[in-house]
Every structure is written in C-alpha cells, then in structure tokens.
C-alpha cells in the first residue's frame, strides 16, 4: 500500500449510523480513531478528542475500496495521474483504490511497481494498491516475474484490458500465482468472438450497424477460468461481469466449491445497450453495456452473493479522444466520483437492497479478496479509513466539478440520490463536501 501518512490525533465521529458489514454492526454509535487506527470509543474520554465530526443523520461506513481503477500513470498523465485519480477517489468516497497495470509501459516488472509506489507515496491522497500484469507486456505469451512483483508490493495480477487468450499460459499463471499466494483477476474476453466489437451484440448493434461484442465472448472465458480455478485449486476473480450467463456460470461454479468471485460495475448495473443509440461514446465501454435482462441477473447475483465486489473500472480518457466516430473511440468511462450515487440510487433506493449488503461489496469483500490487512472494516485496530455517506442526498452530476482530469461520464446532468459527504483516510479528512465550492 502507498498513500498518505496517518493522522496523529484523536478523531471522534459522533452519532452516525455505523454500518460495518464485516463485524455485523448496524447501529448508531461513535467511531473513534487514535493515531490513524480505530479504537474502542469507551476507552477514550470525550475531553481528549482533537476533532469531532457530527455524523448525525449520516451513515458511517468503513472506507470504500475500489478494486478496479485505471490511473493512467505512467504513460498518459494527460488523462489521469496519481494526484488527480486519488483526489477523484476521495471525492467519490473511496479511501483505497486498486490500480490496474495496463499503463504505458505496463506494470510487469518490480522496477515499474517500485516507481509507481514512490509516485503514490508522493502524490496520492488515498491509499493506492497496485496490481501487476499476468503476462509480460500484456502480450499473452510469457509469465511476469510474479514473485518479484509481489515482493515489490502488488496485491494481485491481471492483464485487464488484454485477456490472456492462451489457455495453457493461463493455466500456468493460475498454478504459479497460486504458489506465491497472489490472487488472479481476469478481464474475461475471447478476442476472436469479440473481434471488432464495439457494443453489445443484439437488437441495438444490429439496428445501428455497429460491430457486436457478444455475451458469449465473455461467458466463454468465465467458463474457462472457472474450469482452471477448479483444476488448479486457485482463486480467480472475474472482473466486470456483465452478462446473465456469466452470473450463472460463476454461481454454478461456486456451488461446486470452485474458488471464483465476480465483480460488477455501476454502469453495467444501470445502463443498457439502448443508451448507445445516438452514438454517444460515453456509452462505449469494454465489456459493453448489455440488456435489461442482464442487469436483472447481475442484481440477483449481488443479492445472492454470486457477485461479491462492486468496482468502478474508472477509465479516464481525454474529451478529444472520445469525441470521434463511435467505432474509433476508446473504451471506458470515469466512475469514481459517481459510483456511490449511482449504486445507492439503483440498488438501494430502486431495488431495495439493504445498505449493509451494498457496502459489504465495497469494503470487506474487496479487502478480503486482495488480502488488504486492516482495511474494509471498523473493528478495533483497523486503519481509520472511514466514509461518511448521506444516503438520501439528492444531487446532480456536474462533470465540470470532477477532480478527475477526465470528463468522460455518461451521467453528466443526471439526478442521483445518495452521496459520500466526507472521506477519511488514516484518521484524516481528505475530502469534505461541505468545503467544496458551490
């Protein structure tokens, strides 16, 4: 982990509804941090407190963790960098983010990881966890030195954006990563079946004459990974699952005892391929937006535990890169600063999922998946990473206010309900809505 230094003083967060899924807590009580760690409130006298935050009417959650972020550094600091990306995270309520390794050059060596760690230590305002590539240069040919990567600090390996196509290489990656205890995360995409595809293959791609990226191309690799996880007894985490079939394959594999988990993004849970009908490239992402039926299946998967992790796949791109013909535009949207609003509105207010269930997938589940010690919960001894959320706050997304360098969001101008209002990392407030310029 790389990030800001913890605060030294005593912080008391008073009177909020504390929801700590890992510890089964959902009650109004105080949370107290000393020296950047959670302590038992009973042991600290009120008079000894340096800072008090009045959290009455707010939800006090363990600091949110985004397991899927593209920081674009090194390579494309015009899109995002460690400073802007982590400020965007803080503004969205995330206290820890997991950076994907598809940078330029890709994060496939210990020296690349060391550089990124140093960069994060100098510039990040939230905790940054790094991942490394599965294959050298993300070329899908040779394994990366995973043991060195782990020693340099990565928490997982993934070829996100460039799924390993060779099943033998993937088998060896599972075996090798299993030996050194590194989780494998996979961007599930069969490149032959999805070749040329720019949106979900279906009614809308057919009507618009745009090349389709079919659900089967994702499900084929999820199936492969489930079989490899079973065969090698190692864990695989399927990133950004988008299809009903994918949810079913993961559910069935879990029932057989396979070590597999799934992740869903705010956009795949709320938008469909119909959104691309005006060729707006802010609805172009990889994997693509699917159908209403797929959304229902994803929500069901969240509800029954098949999908354990919510993550944004924050993918910044410059406006001029996105403002081109649909087929020519890069895939992806920014997500850090809208995730809480989109997820709470869709899953909690609309679908009636309990907050505890949603927050679990943004806190303890990603922390467990990636072995992030002392993260994702508010038990005594945990890092004092805390997010204050106003679940009823109504607001309108304004991309001009983004802390991210990029503005490629499909939600500009959208009314949302639910917002992070304070973000605390290591006992220090790193973002406060009340202090944001109107």
């Amino acid at each position, binding site marked *: 982990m790389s990030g800001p230094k913890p605060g030294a003083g005593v912080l008391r967060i008073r009177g909020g509804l504390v929801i700590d899924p890992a510890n089964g807590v959902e009650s109004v009580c105080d949370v107290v941090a000393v020296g950047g760690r959670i302590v038992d409130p009973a042991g600290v006298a009120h008079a000894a407190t340096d800072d008090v935050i009045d959290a009455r009417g707010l939800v006090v959650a363990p600091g949110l963790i985004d397991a899927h972020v593209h920081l674009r550094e090194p390579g494309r600091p015009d899109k995002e960098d460690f400073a802007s990306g982590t400020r965007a995270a803080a503004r969205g309520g995330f206290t820890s983010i997991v950076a994907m390794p598809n940078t330029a050059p890709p994060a496939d060596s210990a020296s690349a990881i060391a550089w990124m760690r140093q960069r994060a230590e100098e510039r990040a305002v939230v905790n940054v966890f790094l991942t490394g590539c599965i294959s050298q240069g993300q070329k899908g040919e040779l394994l990366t030195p995973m043991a060195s990567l782990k020693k340099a600090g990565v928490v997982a390996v993934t070829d996100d954006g460039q799924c390993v196509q060779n099943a033998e290489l993937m088998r060896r990656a599972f075996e090798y990563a299993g030996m050194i205890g590194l989780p494998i995360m996979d961007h599930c995409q069969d490149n032959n079946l999805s070749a040329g595809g720019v949106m979900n293959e*279906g*009614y809308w791609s*057919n*009507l*618009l*004459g*745009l090349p389709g990226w079919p659900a089967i191309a994702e499900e084929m690799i999820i199936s492969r990974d489930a079989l490899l996880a079973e065969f090698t007894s190692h864990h695989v985490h399927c990133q950004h699952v988008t299809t009903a079939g994918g949810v079913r394959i993961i559910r069935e594999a879990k029932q057989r005892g396979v070590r597999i988990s799934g992740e869903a993004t705010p956009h795949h849970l709320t938008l469909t391929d119909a959104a691309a009908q*005006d*060729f707006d490239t802010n609805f172009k992402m990889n994997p693509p937006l699917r159908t209403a039926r797929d959304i229902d299946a994803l929500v069901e998967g969240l509800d029954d535990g098949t999908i354990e992790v919510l993550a944004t796949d924050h993918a910044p791109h410059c406006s*001029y890169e996105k*403002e*081109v*013909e*649909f*087929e*020519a535009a890069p895939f992806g949207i920014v997500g850090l600063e809208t995730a809480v609003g989109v997820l709470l509105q869709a899953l909690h207010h609309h679908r009636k999922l309990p907050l505890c269930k949603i927050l679990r997938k943004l806190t303890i589940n990603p922390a467990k998946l990636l072995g992030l010690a002392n993260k994702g919960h508010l038990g005594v001894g945990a890092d004092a990473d805390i997010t204050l959320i106003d679940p009823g706050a109504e607001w309108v997304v304004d991309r001009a206010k983004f802390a991210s360098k990029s503005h490629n969001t499909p939600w500009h101008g959208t009314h949302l309900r639910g917002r992070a209002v304070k973000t605390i990392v290591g006992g220090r407030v790193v973002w406060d809505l009340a202090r944001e310029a109107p």
Partner: protein
Amino acid sequence: MSVWKRKDLVSIQHMDADEIREVHAAARTFKDVIRREIKKVPALRGKTVVNLFVEPSTRTRISFELAAKRMSADVVAVHSENSSFRKGETLKDTVRNLEALRADFVVLRHKAAGAAQFIAERLGCSVINAGDGAHEHPTQALLDTFTMLEKRGRIEGLRVLIAGDILFSRVARSDIWALTKLGAKVVLCGPTTLLPDVFREMGVEVSHDFDRELPGADVIYLLRVQHERQQHMMFPSIGEFVTLFGLTPERMEKCKPDALIMHPGPINRGVEITSELADGPNSVILEQVTNGLAVRMAVLYLLNGGQAPETVREVAA
C-alpha cells in the same frame, strides 16, 4: 406546407412516412427536369455542396455531384486519398474546416456507423448521409421506394424480398425502415451467418430458404455479396452461396412474371444474380440509378427549405 423540417438527412429510421412521400413527390418533378434538353434548375444557385467521401464510391458520389450541379450549386469533392485524413486529422476537425469555408451542404460517405449523425450534431449546415458503415444509406432507400412506387403505383401491401448479405448492409437497414413505414411486407433472406434472427425485431420476416420465398415476392431486391466476408468465416465459398442464394433463370421461372429485380449496385454478375437476369426485362437496376439522381435533387431541394414542387416550372423559374 412542407412536412420537411429537417436540417439533415441522416437516417430513414427517424423519418416518418409523410416525409418519405414528400421526397417521392419532389423526385417526380425533378425526374421531369433531368429528362429535358436543358437539365438544370437554379434552385441552389450560390450554394456550396461538399462531397466528403471518406470511403470509396463511384455511383453515389457521381449521383450526388450531378444532382448538385443540376441544381446550380457549386460542388467540391473531397476524397479520402487526397484529404487531410491521411495526415491524421479527425473527422470533426475536417468538417469544421469545411464549415469555416461556408459549405451549405456536406454529403458524407464514411466507413463508421453514426459518422453522419456525429457531424450533423456538430455542424450548422445540412448534412446528408451517403452511407455510414453498416448503419444507413437513406437516399438509396428513398430511390428504391421511389422506383417501386413508379413501377407498381403503390408500396403498401407489396411483398419485398431482400436477399444476400444483410448483416453488413446499410442499404438493407434503410430499405427495411422505408418499406415498413410505407406499409410493405419485408422478407429478408440469406445464410444464418449473414442474417441473424435479431432482424425480426425490426418488424420483418427472416428466412433462410430462398426457393420458398421467391414465388411470393413482388420485388426481389438483391444485395451485393462482398467477397471479403468469406475470409471472415461468414460462408464457405462463393459457389456455395450461389447454390443457395443466387438468382438464376431457373429460380426466376418460379417467380411472379412481373416481379421486379432490383440491386443497389455494383453487381457481381454470376454471384447474387446471373448476367442475363441483370439485363433482362424484370430488372429495373439502371432505372434505380436514374431515379437516384432525381431523388438526390429532391433531397437537396427539400433540405434547402423548399416544398415539393408540383411542376417543372416551379423550380425552373
């Protein structure tokens, strides 16, 4: 009053039947114009039409160029081979430059679906889609339906069989929209690999049995089979395609005697249609080309704010 209120012609999907009929009405008059000794009217005098063809085209480009010239517009042609695209300029920058040069119309042919809508949303001048990827080719559908109307006196109730490479065809999509809006019955026919079932959701029938569909068709609309598809594993060989979906004299014998044979061109003789049928009495393929000119004149005229003229005198003044 004209029902045409549009700045652009980007798709048939977003047009209504009355707008299509108004194009047909105007095209009738312009067809009279192009049959006269002096084939020119002053309707667009002082206006500038830019033909921006970022994908190769002969027939459509010449048709638009001639249409604009017949309307007395100044015409500039930009082809991809000699344009700034080769220097990496974006489409948006290119068209904004054209606008800065005070173009009144941009006619765009582009390989990317949605390219015409993309520039239409960013330009103040009129944009005409001359084919965007596999999305739409609206003037083709307007000339196709104009031709059917001229030959049959009506569109409503006609059974139109569109056969061949449907999946990659912008012509098929625009024709499906135009024909269904005008009340025709559309049947699509081709191999499963080039004709996914999802087309049914556009309100048409989907069939993979050419011989079964031919006898009922009032119009047989053949699409060009693109050889490069074979490399994309879409079908095993041209020979096998011909066996299943080629229009031959034997197959023609089972058709209605007055069935129209249509094709957007260019034809692959001996593939989707035999040479003799392409040149035979049922074929109206060359009339489609002539009508294309009249229809494109009509479109320019209506986009320029005109109302469908009833006589040549109205536009020749």
